[in-house]
Structure formats: structure tokens, C-alpha cells
């Protein structure tokens, strides 16, 4: 089976003043359908940058990124937006829920862009919220929820559109141990029960252990996690 994500010779640099800093250099990477990949590495190594490129939030300087056969580096800005809404579920470190919307409405948000009826949307949202065990919190606003609960709402929002893959940038970075554990268990279940492809950036080795695959990024170069540097990171 062809890999769901196929990255070839990806290079990305940022311009700061008149000098440009190379953040990612000649990255090549394949991710199989259903993989739960943990992306690790020291701070500033370019993990978020790589994740943003895969998720179609940013453009690379050169190289190609194919997701389910589509080369997203060729898509225009607006096509990319449409592609994201159909193919990517996002989980952020700081949850990024809309504070004036209830848990239900936050999860419903990405469905606004689909042509589902109101009734169908309600079914989808309810299913997603059940999946994260928050069926009793539908009418709560984010400020009425704990960090862990907010992150679970965010997970529901990420899966409600049934995307091709889910990207998560340090999803447990802002959580206490128990909540982090819960969030990770959920992500594990998404991977094992539903077979979702998940790409997760993390600093937390315990989080990385839940994944079934791991890549290590250092100074913009990708390596298979060597045991030595892995424990260094600990």
C-alpha cells in the first residue's frame, strides 16, 4: 500500500533581516496510512515547521508533499484552505477553542464548511463528543472546562469531519499528568480503533511511547530515533 503522506527533499528557510535561516533541509519522509507518528527533537529543531508544512498551513521553499496522492505544495492558497478543511484535523498545545462558543458549537465549527444539514451536523457533533466522553458538557463554554476537557473538545473538533489525518503540536504540553494521560489514551484509541493517521509533535517521551512510530529531528535534519539521543532528550 502506498504511504498516505510522502515527503521528498523538503527544504524550508526563514528570512530574518537579510540573512536566511535554513530550518528544514532535504527532508524525506513517508507515513503509512493508520500510522501514529511521534515527532521529537530539541526546541527550535523545526518540528512545528515541518508539521505546519504537512498540514498545509505553510509553504515550503522546495520539495514536494503528497498527501493521499495530492501534491499540496502545488495548491493555491484558497484550494489549500478547502483541502485542509476536508483532510486535516488539528490539535494545538493551547486547545485554541473559540471562547464565545459552547463545546458543542466549537465541535460544530468545521462542519459549517461542509454541506451537511443541521440535523446531520448535530449527529456528527454528538458522536464526536461521545467519543471523547464529554456528552454531559455540550453546553459548557471553554472557560467552564478544565484544560484536559478543553483538549478533549479540541480532539472532538479535529475528528468530527473525519479527516485523512490528524496533526497535533504538543497536545499535552500544557496539561498536568493525569489529563495528559487521558488525552494520549484518546489519541491512541483514534489510532487503534478508528485507524486514523496521526502525526504528533511532542517533547514528552511518555507521549512518544504511545505512538507506534517515531522520528527525531535535529537542526532541520531527520533521523530515526537513535536510542542515545532519545534518552538525551529525556
Amino acid at each position, binding site marked *: 500500500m502506498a504511504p498516505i503522506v510522502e515527503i521528498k527533499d523538503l527544504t524550508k528557510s526563514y528570512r530574518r533581516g537579510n540573512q536566511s535561516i535554513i530550518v528544514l533541509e532535504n527532508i524525506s519522509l513517508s507515513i503509512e496510512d493508520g500510522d501514529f507518528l511521534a515527532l521529537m527533537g530539541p526546541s527550535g529543531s523545526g518540528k512545528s515547521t515541518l508539521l505546519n508544512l504537512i*498540514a498545509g*498551513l505553510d509553504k515550503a521553499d522546495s520539495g514536494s508533499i503528497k498527501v493521499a496522492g495530492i501534491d499540496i505544495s502545488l495548491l493555491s492558497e484558497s484550494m489549500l*484552505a*478547502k483541502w485542509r*478543511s476536508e483532510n486535516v484535523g488539528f490539535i*494545538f498545545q493551547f486547545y*485554541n477553542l473559540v471562547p*464565545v462558543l459552547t463545546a458543542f458549537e466549537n465541535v460544530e*465549527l*468545521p462542519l459549517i464548511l461542509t454541506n451537511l444539514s443541521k440535523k446531520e451536523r448535530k449527529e456528527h457533533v454528538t458522536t464526536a463528543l461521545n467519543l471523547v466522553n464529554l456528552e454531559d458538557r455540550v453546553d459548557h463554554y471553554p472557560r467552564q472546562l478544565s484544560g484536559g476537557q478543553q483538549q478533549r473538545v479540541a480532539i472532538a473538533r479535529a475528528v468530527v469531519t473525519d479527516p485523512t489525518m490528524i496533526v497535533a503540536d504538543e497536545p499535552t504540553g500544557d496539561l498536568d499528568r493525569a489529563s495528559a494521560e487521558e488525552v494520549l489514551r484518546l489519541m491512541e484509541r483514534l489510532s487503534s480503533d478508528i485507524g486514523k493517521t496521526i502525526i504528533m509533535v511532542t517533547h514528552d517521551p511518555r507521549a512518544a511511547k504511545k505512538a507506534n512510530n517515531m522520528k527525531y529531528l535535529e537542526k532541520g535534519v531527520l533521523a530515526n530515533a537513535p536510542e542515545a539521543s532519545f534518552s538525551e532528550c529525556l
Partner: protein
Amino acid sequence: MLLKLLFRNAFRHKLRAGLTICGICVAILAFGLLRTVVSAWYAGVDASSSTRLVTRNAISLIFPLPLSYKDKIRGVEGVKIVSLGNWFGGIYIEEKNFFANFAVDSKTYLDLYPEFVIPPDQKLSFLKERKGCVVGSKLANRFGWKLGDTIVLRGTIFPGKWEFILRAIYKGRDKTIDESQFFFHWDYLNETMKKILPRRADQVGFYMIGMSSPDIAASTSKSVDSLFKNSFAETLTETEKAFQTSFIALSQTILTVIQLVSLVVIVIILAVVANTMAMSVRERMNEYAVFKTLGFGGFYLSILILGESLLITAIGCAIGIIATFPAADAFARAVGDFFPIFNISLRTLYLDMLAALIVGVVAAIFPIWRAISVPIASGLGRAG
């Protein structure tokens, strides 16, 4: 759902939203009142008929014309009615009780002004009474005058105490008609002057001409004026509108200032609303980045931000307009004597709404541009 979001966004900061709405409301109120003052000023002009011409002394309004001109003017082609009158300038008890009072050739004058509606019996008794006078209903109410009352005016241009008997009260045909004028018989004035100051008898302040059609105004004015060319009292004939406007021209500068101030008010409130929107949007950059991440394009962001801006201005505008009515009433009561007609015109309300719309749209432009152009990654970077 977007609508719900838009509403909740608008009132996320209750104090800020409240203050902004308050500001818009006050601005619209001020704008509306100022516009109404301007239109009150022009009310006389708008109410004037285009089939009426005014002939006055070419040198200045304060110089009279001979009575003999009347028949000559009547001979001009296109002239149907000729009436005449003098600004009397009488004072009722005190100077502050100012109102316009004229001595006019009553029969012809009332024929020229069908917009002054008088019950036929009152009109008859006014015409029969030598000292009779007719006043507008607003003026009658102001001083509590009733039919049959004797009213004494102190002359300023024409010396002495002048006694009149109120015989008729007119109403305007519509709201644009000034109901606070005072008319009496020119013959009464002239006969009295013959007795006390014969030198000043048979002198007319202005002739009022009724034409058969408004189209011949230019040619008729020219023929009238050419009649008296090179005579000792040359004339200037213009439409009633132009005549009124020349009065107003004196205060043109003030009007310009008022109009300018009303614009400045709008510009200030634009700055306030723009600031509110810019603040709100800057705080929510991270949220807009999330929207963009989820695939919402510039169209949705524009709707959200523009909608919020318009919602706030619309509420402020609505309250402002509602408040304009009692405020205008109070204003009219305070200074009503100077503005016989003080109505909030539909035009003013439209201008209010137009101003609010422009403010709402313009205030949203920059925030929308910001929200759309900020790259997603740096927008998300503001998280936490």
C-alpha cells in the same frame, strides 16, 4: 451559527461595546440635530413657490418702491397677480418675542399663498376688518391669542403703537409651512402713514408677483426690471426662492460651519469605532488564525468582522435616531422662535443611517485586512 458568533463577539467586552455604542449614539444624535438646524434654516426656501417672483429695490431691500409700479407690473406678460407688502418689524411687548410681521395687500396676498389655509368665514371677517390681522396657529398658541383679541405692536420702522384685532388664524397646508407669521392690511398702514408721516406714504417694500407658469420666471423678471430701468428706483426681480436664499446667504458661513462640524462628528466617531474594532480583532488574531486553519477563507472572516462592526454601529444609530426626536423637540422649544419650522426630515434620517453605514464599513476594513493577511503560523503563535 456565524450570526450567533458575530453577536457574541460584538458583546464580548460589554463595557467596550457599550461605550462604543454610546459614542455612536451621541454622534448620530449630534449629527441629526445639526442637520435639522441646517434644514430648518432652509425651510423657508424649500417652502417657497416657484411661480412667485419678488420685486424689490435694486439698491437694497431697505429702500422702498413707489406704489405706482403696481399697475405697470400688472401689464407685463405672464403676470397673473400682483401683491405688495412691507416688512413691518413691529415688537410685541418685548424684543425677545420676535416674530415676522408684514403689512400686505391682503386679498391678493392670500390668493398668492394658497398654502396658508384659513377657514372661509375667518378670511371674510379679516378682509372686512380695517385693523384686522391674520396669524399662524403656532404664533397664536405661543401667546395664547384668540379670535377677537386686540394685539398691540410697537412700531420700529413705522413709529407709534399699532392696534390690531385678530380675525383669522391660518394653518399650513403641510408641515413645511411656517405657521408663525403675522399679516395685516397694507391699507391700514398706508392710511395711517398718510396722516402722521405723509412723506413716507405710498411706499412699498416689495412686490409679490404670481406668474402663470414657473417656466417664464427668467423672462418675466427681466421684463419687469427693464420697465424701471433708468428710473429713480430701479428694481430687482427674482424668484421667491432666490429672494429667500439671499436672506440666508447672510448666515451662509454659519451654515457651512455647522455642516463641517456635523462631518467632523462623524469622522471622530469613525476613529472611535475603528479603534474598537482594531482592538477586538487584534485580541482575537489567534482565533482568526484557528478559523483559517480550519479552512475558513477571507470571505467568512470579512463577514464576521464587518458584521460585528455593522451590528455595533446599527445599534448605536438606532438608539441615536430614537433619541433625536425628543432632543429635537426640546431644542425646538428652546430656540423655536428662530426656527419656525423645526422638523426632522426623512433626509436627515437617511443621512444618519448612511453615516452609520459608512462608519461601520470603513472601521472594519483595516481589521479585516489584518486578519486575512496575517500568516496562520504567526497567528497561532500568539496562543496562550
